C-alpha cells in the first residue's frame, strides 16, 4: 500500500470524527433522567414489565418475552456463524489428514 493512502485515510477519519463531535452538540447531557431515550418508551417497561411477565429482571423480560422473536433470530445468527466456521475449518483438517497419509 502506498504511503499517500494512509494520509488520505487519516484525513477522512479526522473529518468523520470532527463531524461526529459537532453532532454531539445536539445530544442530551450524560445521565439526564429526562432525556428522550429515558422518557418516552422505557418508563412503561419499568412500570409494567414485572406485572406482565412475572420477571423481576427487566432486561431479561424484554429480551426473552417482549422481543423473543428477535432473540430467536439472534440464535439463528449464532447458528449460521458456527456452521460457517465449521465448514471453513473442516477443510483444513481434511487436507492435513490426506498429507499425513
Amino acid at each position, binding site marked *: *500500500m502506498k504511503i499517500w*493512502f*494512509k494520509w488520505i*485515510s*487519516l484525513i*477522512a*477519519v*479526522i473529518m*468523520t*470524527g470532527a463531524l*461526529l*463531535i459537532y453532532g*454531539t*452538540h445536539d*445530544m442530551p*447531557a*450524560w*445521565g*439526564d*433522567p429526562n*432525556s428522550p*431515550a*429515558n422518557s418516552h*418508551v*422505557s*418508563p412503561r*417497561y*419499568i*412500570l409494567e*414489565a*414485572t*406485572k406482565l*411477565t*412475572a*420477571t*423481576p*429482571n*427487566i*432486561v431479561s423480560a*424484554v*429480551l426473552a418475552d417482549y*422481543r423473543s422473536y*428477535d*432473540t430467536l433470530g*439472534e440464535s439463528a*445468527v*449464532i447458528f*449460521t*456463524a*458456527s456452521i*460457517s*466456521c465449521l465448514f*471453513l*475449518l473442516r*477443510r*483444513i483438517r481434511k487436507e492435513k489428514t490426506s498429507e499425513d497419509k
Partner: protein
Amino acid sequence: MLEYVLAKYNYWIYVVLMMIGLYAMMGKRNLVKKLIGMNIFQTSIILLFVSMGVKKGGATVPILMGDGHGHGEQIIQVADYLNPLPHVLMLTAIVVSIATTGVALATLILIYKRYHTLEEDEIMAIRKEAAAYKTLGT
C-alpha cells in the same frame, strides 16, 4: 464551559474510540489489525448506546423487588431504575459482533494457509504474480 464538557465528554470518548477503529480498518495493512479495528469500532458503538441509558441521581440496575405475583413488591419509581432498553439492544449487538469476529478469524486462518502471510499488499503481490504467470502460460 466546564458544565458543557462534563455533560458531553462521554460522547467525545466514544468518538475518539470510533476514530481509532476506523483508522485501523482503513490505514493498517495487516488483516488481524483490521479485524481488531472493527472490534474497537463495535465496542465504541456499544458504549455509546449503553451510556444513553444512564440516569444520574441514585438510579440502580433494572432489577425490581418482588416476583410479579404480589409478593415483596414496592412502589416503582421510574427515576430509581436505569433505562433497560439500550442494555437489551446491546446484548444483541454483542452477539452479532462475536459471530462476525469468529467467522472473520476462521477466514483469516484459511488466508494464512493459502498465502503464508496476512499482510494485504503481500497477498495482492502474490495474486498479481500468479495472474501474470497464468497469462504467460497460455
